[in-house]
């Protein structure tokens, strides 16, 4: 019995060590970005990436932020997120409620119809969206991004919220209906408060996806004033491709916020993913 426990312990140690080594290897690219971003170009060529920097050049970050216009790109990405994420989740949750808690003939077909969007690649909507935005007069503005982002986010969000709503006991809803509450009241006073974990998870997932979105922004936005972080990073690479230290500072600026959000909120992130995907 004790020898079994002993073998278990050694195998655990081996596995743990292997995992730790592997995780360090996995982090190598991010570490090298940070190591490069804090030194000068000359230092980089002399000591290589992994030599300890001779002097710390925090002004690389300042250069990327100001002259590199990351201040603009950040602001734009934040704007899109603040507009899109709450609105998208609200719209999806409103739709998920009747799909979960009301019986009506079109329930299943509508749900299926909304789910198909999960499989639609954005490429198939690109050119028409360009034309649409031009006709709506929204081209080259951040507002052009909002409706398509919301539309493409609906399938997953409806899936997750419907799954969550279905787990809320129907008796609560029935009782509220008996008491004369309108469906809208039920939604805001019962469904939403009980779904905070799912809502939080979706908000985080959606924020990250919006922060990272590239192709639609590439096609709809050209004006520097309206560039989001991924597009800005793309141009930035062109401007500084042989000045790797400033380039890596720019890369660091675009990934550090995402990493921070993820590190502190990953608990919700993980539950949200598994809830939506597994439990449906």
């Amino acid at each position, binding site marked *: 019995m004790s020898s079994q426990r002993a073998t278990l312990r050694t195998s655990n140690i081996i596995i743990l060590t292997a995992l730790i080594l592997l995780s360090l290897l996995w982090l190598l690219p991010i570490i090298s970005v940070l190591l490069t971003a804090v030194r000068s*170009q*000359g230092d980089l*060529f002399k000591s290589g990436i992994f030599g300890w920097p001779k002097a710390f050049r925090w002004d690389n970050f300042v250069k990327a932020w100001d*002259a*590199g216009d990351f201040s603009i790109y950040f602001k734009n990405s934040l704007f899109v997120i603040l507009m899109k994420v709450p609105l998208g989740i609200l719209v999806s949750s409103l739709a998920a409620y009747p799909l979960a808690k009301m019986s009506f003939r079109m329930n299943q077909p509508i749900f299926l119809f909304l789910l198909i969007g999960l499989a639609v690649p954005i490429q198939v909507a690109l050119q028409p969206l*360009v*034309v649409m*935005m*031009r006709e709506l007069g929204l*081209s*080259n503005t951040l507002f052009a991004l909002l409706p398509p982002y919301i539309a493409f986010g609906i399938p997953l969000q409806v899936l997750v919220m419907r799954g969550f709503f279905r787990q809320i006991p129907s008796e609560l809803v029935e009782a509220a209906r008996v008491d004369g509450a309108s469906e809208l009241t039920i939604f805001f006073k019962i469904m939403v408060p009980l779904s905070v974990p799912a809502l939080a998870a979706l908000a985080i997932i959606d924020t990250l996806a919006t922060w990272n979105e590239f192709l639609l922004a*590439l*096609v*709809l*936005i*050209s*004006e*520097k*004033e309206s560039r989001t972080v991924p597009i800005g990073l*793309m*141009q930035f*690479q*062109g*401007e*500084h*491709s*042989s*000045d790797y230290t400033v380039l890596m500072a720019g890369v660091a600026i675009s990934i550090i916020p995402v990493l921070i959000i993820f590190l502190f909120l990953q608990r919700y992130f993980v539950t949200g993913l598994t809830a939506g995907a597994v439990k449906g």
Partner: protein
Amino acid sequence: MKSLICGAFAAAMLLGSGALAQDKTTIRFANTFDGPSAENWEPVLQAFMAAHPDIEVKSESVAGSGAAVYPDVLRTSMASGDPADVFFLWGGSIAKPFIDAGQVEPLDAVFAEKGWATRFPAWTVSRLQQDGKQYGVPFHGQGMGFFYRKDLFAQNGITEPKTYAELEGVCSKLKAANIYCASTGGKFGWHVMRLVDFFIEAACGPDVHDQLNALKVSWDQPCVVDAYGRFKSWIDNGWLVPDFLNVAPDDARIPVYQGQAAMIVEGPWFEGALKQNEQDSADYGFFMPPTDHEPSRYSAFPEQWMIASGSKHKEAAVTFIDFISSADTQKAFPDAFGASATIGIKPDCTANPLSCQITDIVQSDRPAYPPTDQAFEKELMDSFFEVQDSIVAGKLTPAEGAKLFQERAEAWKAKS
């Protein structure tokens, strides 16, 4: 009393703001300035806005990928119906789609009115015409050739080659000293193309080269095979820094900075890049690649300012272009106007000797040929790049490459 004073104050404010509130015209100015160039242009824009307080200029830069990403951005803004008013563009086939789509304003009347025809060398003006109409105003006259490390040449007893055979000798000597002869970057294709263009000019001569670019003769002919063969020999001899097909053009400079390679094909902008990358331009020399033909042409192209036909501020745009292309403005801000097409504008020859050397050539009578990516539209050009890459990788022999490109050119002609 107090309300009277408030009222008077308010009235004064209204009156005052009325005087200042003449509507400011804002023109958008799209360009490919990289970080340092944008810094050099700041004072130019400020000077213009000071001289024309009713016009505001907003500069939007897309840099680094050459003719690859910037046209995409322009297209997007034009498709949106909200284009930049003044925009930079290369010439030839890069500008053609925009002109064909009616997105560019013809400037013949403006040229006559402003007397621009005498401001620039004739070859730059005529290269910016299409179908007999003038669509662009010359900004740069760019000539390209080999920048080389003078110290590496001197250490190995090498002088500037005057014939192609001598050039090969230079490379052999460098190889013997374990130095790569030249460095190039294959991402996006156009940097490697500069070398290939030189081989085509050297192997085929000026007349045939022009006819090839016009698709008037077949590419599947001996001199083209010879040209690709020379290209392949540079690779097989180890004269080029290896594994370059996905290296970005800017990154190809690094082996030259570090002394691992001795030469790189660049234009006058390179001197500015050297300064920006903290390299000493005194270490560098410049020569035009020897083609063994009379006349010995070199690769050159004008770059232009254009006005979008969808612009709502065309007059302001013309005023702006007049300002930035005038000799007076350019003399006042030499850092922003290297390789200028404006006659008489040369860079400071003590500070920028190499750019000066190139400008002398460009503003002279020596004939030039366009880089191939200004002769072919992007779709056909991508086939050209595909052939060039395949030869590098050994997937096609020079003969097969020439044949394949001819097939693609014929298919392209049939489609359009």
